[in-house]
C-alpha cells in the first residue's frame, strides 16, 4: 500500500515501530481504542495499523460528531428545514445523512432552503443579511465545537438578532466512553483520547477511566507520529501495570483545557437529562441543550419537532461500528449497498467515520493483519 510505504520511509516512524515491538508485554493481546474519528482517518490514511506489532489491535471509537447523531434527530432537522420561511444551515457532512424520510439534501430538492456553512458565525451572518427570514443552525459536535456555537449565541444575544436559532445537538465525550467501558461485549486495554476535544476540556476529565476502570489513557495529536507515540506510551503503561492519564499532545492540550471555551459553554448550555446516541442508545447527562436564558434562540422551543426515537436502517451496523464491536468491512452492506456516494449509515458519510476511512483508502476487504487475527 502506497501510504504505508511512504510512511515507513520515515526514520522516526520506523524507530517508534521497533520500540513498540520491544515494549509489548510478551504473550498478551492488547486492544486500544482510538476514540476520535480524526485519529481513525489518520490511521487508515497512513497505514499506521499495519506498522503495529502482532497482538496489538486498534479499535475505532465513537468520536465522530456526524456519526453519533441518531436517525430521530436527522428527522427533526428535516422537519425544521421544511418550516416555512426558514433558512436551515448545517455543516456539509450532515446534509447527506439519511433520515427515515430522506436527508437534508432530499429536503432541499423538495423545496427547503438548506445551506451548507463552515462556521456557526456564517449562519449568524446569514441571519443579519436576511432579516425577513428565520435562520436555524444545526449544531453538532463534541466539546471541540460547542464553544463556537456558544460564542455565536452570545453574539446573537448581544446584537439582539432575533431571527436566529440553534438546533442544539452538542454532546460530551465522557459519558459515551463510560458506556463503552461498561459494556460487557468489548474488552479494551487502553484509550487514545481525542486531541482537539481535549484542547477545550483538558486532560483531567479522563481521570475516571484510570481511577475507576483501571485503564490507561493518552491524549494524542493528529499526526502519524503523534498517534504512534501515543500507542507506545499506552503499551509502556500496560507493560508496567500502570493506569494513568498521560498527555502526548502537550503543545496544544493543557490539564485544565481552555477556560474561555468552557465558560462560553457554561453560560449558554446545560446538560440534558438524557440524549440518544446512534448505537449507544440514550445516555444520561451526555448531551447539551440551551439554557432557559437562551430559549429565544432555541429551535427546539421555537418550533415543533417530532422528537421521536427512530431505529436505524435494518441493514446498517453503524451502531456496532461506533461501539468497536464490528469492523467496517464486516458489515453486510459495506461497499455494496452502502458507499460514500449512497450512504446508508452515518459512518459512511463523514470523512471521520470509520467506514468512509476504510472505503476511501482501499480497505474494502480485510487487511493481512485482520486475516491473521480472524
Amino acid at each position, binding site marked *: 500500500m502506497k501510504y504505508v510505504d511512504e510512511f515507513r520511509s520515515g526514520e522516526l516512524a520506523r524507530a517508534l515501530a521497533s520500540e513498540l515491538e520491544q515494549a509489548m508485554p510478551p504473550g498478551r493481546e492488547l486492544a486500544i481504542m482510538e476514540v*476520535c*474519528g*480524526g485519529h481513525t*482517518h*489518520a490511521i487508515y*490514511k497512513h497505514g499506521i495499523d499495519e506498522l503495529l506489532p502482532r497482538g496489538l489491535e486498534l479499535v475505532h471509537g465513537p*468520536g465522530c*460528531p*456526524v456519526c453519533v447523531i441518531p436517525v430521530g434527530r436527522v428527522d427533526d432537522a428535516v422537519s425544521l428545514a421544511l418550516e416555512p420561511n426558514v433558512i436551515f444551515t448545517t*455543516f*456539509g*457532512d450532515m446534509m447527506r445523512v439519511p433520515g427515515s424520510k430522506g436527508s437534508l439534501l432530499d429536503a432541499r430538492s423538495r423545496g427547503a432552503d438548506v445551506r*451548507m*456553512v*463552515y*462556521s*456557526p*458565525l*456564517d449562519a449568524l*451572518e*446569514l441571519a*443579519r*443579511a436576511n432579516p425577513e427570514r428565520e435562520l436555524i443552525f444545526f449544531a453538532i*459536535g*463534541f466539546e*471541540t*465545537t460547542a*464553544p*463556537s456555537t456558544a*460564542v455565536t449565541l452570545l*453574539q446573537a444575544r448581544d446584537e439582539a438578532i432575533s431571527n436566529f436559532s440553534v438546533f442544539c445537538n452538542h454532546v460530551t465525550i465522557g459519558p459515551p466512553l463510560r458506556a463503552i467501558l461498561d459494556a460487557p461485549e468489548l474488552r479494551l486495554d487502553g484509550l487514545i483520547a*481525542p486531541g*482537539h*476535544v481535549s*484542547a*477545550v476540556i483538558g486532560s483531567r476529565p479522563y481521570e475516571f477511566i484510570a481511577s475507576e476502570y483501571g485503564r490507561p489513557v493518552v491524549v494524542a495529536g*493528529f*499526526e*502519524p507520529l503523534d498517534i504512534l507515540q501515543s500507542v507506545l506510551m499506552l503499551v509502556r503503561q500496560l507493560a508496567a501495570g500502570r493506569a494513568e492519564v498521560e498527555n502526548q499532545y502537550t*503543545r*496544544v492540550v493543557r490539564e485544565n483545557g*481552555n477556560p*474561555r*471555551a468552557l465558560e*462560553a459553554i457554561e453560560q449558554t448550555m446545560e446538560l440534558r437529562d438524557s440524549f440518544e446516541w446512534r448505537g449507544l442508545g440514550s445516555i444520561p447527562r451526555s448531551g447539551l441543550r440551551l439554557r432557559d436564558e437562551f430559549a429565544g434562540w432555541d429551535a427546539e422551543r421555537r418550533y415543533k419537532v417530532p422528537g421521536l426515537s427512530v431505529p436505524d436502517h435494518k441493514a446498517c451496523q453503524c451502531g456496532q461500528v461506533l461501539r468497536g464491536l464490528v469492523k467496517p468491512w464486516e458489515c453486510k452492506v459495506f461497499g455494496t449497498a452502502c458507499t460514500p456516494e449512497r450512504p446508508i449509515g452515518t459512518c459512511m458519510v*463523514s*470523512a*471521520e467515520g470509520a467506514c468512509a476511512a476504510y472505503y*476511501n483508502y482501499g480497505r474494502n476487504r480485510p487487511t493481512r493483519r485482520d486475516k491473521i487475527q480472524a
Partner: protein
Amino acid sequence: MCLGIPAQIVEILDPEAKTAKADIGGVRRIVSCALLEGEAQLGEWVLVHVGFALDRIDEEQANETLQLLSDMGEAYERELAGIRASAGESSKGAA
C-alpha cells in the same frame, strides 16, 4: 470536522468583537478570536476550528502540521473547500 487547521493572523479587524482575518491554507477568511487568551496579534499562528481560533501554536509546529494535513488528502480538502465556500460570504459582513 474535528480537524483544527493551523492559520496565520494576517489582519486584526475588530479588537472589541475579537475578529481577525486569517490565512488558512491559502484561503483568507474572518475568524473569531474570542476563545483566545488576550488579544490576537498580527502574524500569530493559531489552530482554527469551524471559524474559531481555538488556541495559539508556534510557527514551526504550524508548518509541520500543515504539511501533514495536506498529505492527509480528502479530509483536509473538504475542510478547505468549506472554508473557501464560506470565505466570500462572511467577509462581506462581520467586519
